[in-house]
């Protein structure tokens, strides 16, 4: 007979560390060369998997999938920039536009206490049972926390929402210092909250990994004499944090470390609106900084970063130019044109897949999705900036996102023997905490 009091276990706790844009293959190398020993210790006891992202492969869409367990056709976030319905007015989607409950809201309603720090698309903060600090879409810390008083507590720890990406263009040294300082303050703040607060679920998001990868990935990959090692040094700081977190966890606690997409060297930026102009499908509005609002009836198709293509349909947009009857033919033409697109420097194809809205998205928000999503081969970063005057260009960004080389690493639970997708986040986390996922989630449960 079991004696209830003695056999009662504390309910399981779960800590999630999100490392934005860190590739599985990169961490395999760190495990091999011993430069991330704490990560290696977790990997030895846990399940380590290569994982997949979402289309389009950007963090705001990916983490929205993670925290809602749903495809973008349900949660309604399709990119960092979108257009207000029935208009060409662009806006930056954030938590107020996310149409579904977040993982930590569900946990809060079920009586779990949560700590959530810096996850993309969590600003403006929504109420939770516990503490939440919004991610990098927050203009400043004040107003970005739940409860509001949390901001002053974090200010004392020098907490900073994000690094300044423009610094990287000015000086890599200054940018690196900003990366380090921002990370150390976040690490200090998160560990303080873990120690001082009661929690059942805690998640900290490191955005700096995506930032350093954007500006230094090529330097790392090509073995730059100074920056390649400093790049790995930054990851060593993250490994120290993994060590500190592991030390705080009990044997019953679980740990999930994951990324939302991989990274590779950026060969060329591909200006998709310039390409549409070349095809005779778009007329670039005049002026130094043309906006989507300036598009007119001469434009049949326009695109937004990355690789999102929209038919300028009559009945959907105010200056629509495409009838429903010609839509299918136009999509066929567009798809064929994209597939034929080549990099003139070596004649290699640029687009690996062209996916239609219905193949990617389903749900009440799917009508706001792009009509087509073009998926590039690694190295070709699709940009929807208007007013570009050439098809291929290169700027300060030397790294870009990849779909298939994200990772999941779980300790305290075995992951199913399959490729995780970022959309499996919320369902799996709920299952790890012995909670039933809501029926409208699309993700799979990967905890076995």
């Amino acid at each position, binding site marked *: 007979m079991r004696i209830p009091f003695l056999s009662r276990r504390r309910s399981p706790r779960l800590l999630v560390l999100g490392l934005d844009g860190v590739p599985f293959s990169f961490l395999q190398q760190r495990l091999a060369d011993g430069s991330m020993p704490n990560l290696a210790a977790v990997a030895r006891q846990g399940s380590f998997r290569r994982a997949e992202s979402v289309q389009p492969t950007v963090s705001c869409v990916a983490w929205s999938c993670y925290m809602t367990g749903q495809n973008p056709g349900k949660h309604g976030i399709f990119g960092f920039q979108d257009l*207000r319905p*029935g208009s060409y007015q662009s806006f*930056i989607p954030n938590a*107020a536009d996310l149409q579904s409950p977040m993982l930590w809201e569900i946990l809060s309603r079920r009586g779990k206490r949560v700590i959530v720090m810096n996850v993309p698309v969590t600003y403006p903060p929504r109420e939770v049972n516990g503490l939440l600090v919004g991610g990098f879409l927050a203009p400043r810390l004040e107003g970005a926390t739940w409860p509001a008083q949390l901001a002053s507590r974090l200010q004392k720890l020098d907490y900073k929402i994000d690094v300044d990406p423009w610094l990287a263009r000015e000086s890599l040294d200054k940018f690196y210092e900003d990366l380090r300082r921002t990370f150390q303050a976040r690490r200090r703040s998160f560990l303080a909250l873990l120690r001082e607060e009661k929690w059942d679920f805690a998640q900290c998001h490191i955005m700096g990994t995506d930032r350093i990868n954007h500006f230094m990935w090529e330097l790392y990959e090509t073995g730059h004499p100074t920056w390649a090692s400093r790049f790995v040094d930054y990851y060593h700081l993250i490994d120290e944090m993994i060590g500190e977190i592991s030390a705080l966890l009990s044997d019953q606690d679980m740990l999930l470390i994951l990324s939302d997409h991989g990274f590779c060297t950026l060969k060329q930026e591909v200006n998709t609106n310039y390409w549409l102009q070349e095809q005779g499908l778009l007329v670039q509005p005049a002026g130094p900084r043309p906006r989507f609002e300036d598009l007119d009836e001469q434009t049949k198709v326009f695109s937004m970063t990355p690789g999102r293509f929209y038919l300028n349909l009559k009945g959907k947009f105010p200056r629509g130019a495409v009838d429903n009857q010609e839509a299918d033919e136009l999509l066929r033409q567009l798809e064929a044109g994209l597939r034929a697109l080549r990099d003139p420097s070596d004649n290699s194809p640029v687009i690996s897949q062209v996916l239609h809205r219905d193949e990617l998205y389903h749900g009440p928000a799917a009508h706001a999705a792009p009509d087509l999503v073009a998926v590039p081969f690694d190295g070709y970063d699709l940009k929807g*900036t208007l007013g570009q005057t050439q098809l291929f260009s290169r700027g300060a960004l030397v790294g870009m996102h990849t779909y298939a080389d994200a990772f999941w690493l779980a300790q305290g639970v075995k992951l199913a023997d399959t490729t995780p997708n970022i959309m499996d986040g919320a369902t799996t986390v709920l299952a790890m905490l012995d909670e039933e996922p809501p029926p409208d989630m699309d993700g799979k449960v990967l905890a076995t």
Partner: protein
Amino acid sequence: MAQGAVIWFTGVPAAGKSTIAGKVQELLEARGLPVENLDADEVRQNLSPNLGYTPEARDENTKRLAWMAKMLSKYGVNVLVAAVSPLRYHRDRAREYCPHFVEVAVKASLETCKQRDPKGLYARAERGEVNDIAGWHMPYEESLNPEVVIDTEQVSVAEAADMVIAKLEELNYIPATAGAEAAGPYSSDEEQQVAERLEGLGYM
């Protein structure tokens, strides 16, 4: 007294005219503007239940609607009319009557309309009880120059209503509000700041 707008929703049965008109009514009322919703079916039931459905009777009904809209809008009321009004001259006549006229062409495929069929009209036609549905048995003349075109298979009701409101603002038929972004969490300075961060990362 300011002239009211007349917003005339035309389209085949079950295209979504009344639903969008209802939403536009809500939005105008929320702004404290005077609104009257003249739903063609309701007006017919209340004012002329014996009118019938011959082409002449339909013509008469749209004429009455246009005239009522004209009278109400003259006194500053914004009038919503949801009527199949299948022939161009039905709408053009209303346009002549009403100075601030906004024609909203509401579209959906026959297949979708059959599926929606809120009044059971298409089902009755399938059973052979009705054979005069505009766009199926009878001609529906597409609008040539409508102020707004809405494809209800492409946009939600809320989005459709926003499109109509935006057009009313653009034409200065109703006072413009501060704009959609003012309703969000960002001030324009803050939005600019976040946009610059995103541009710095190549995300815009």
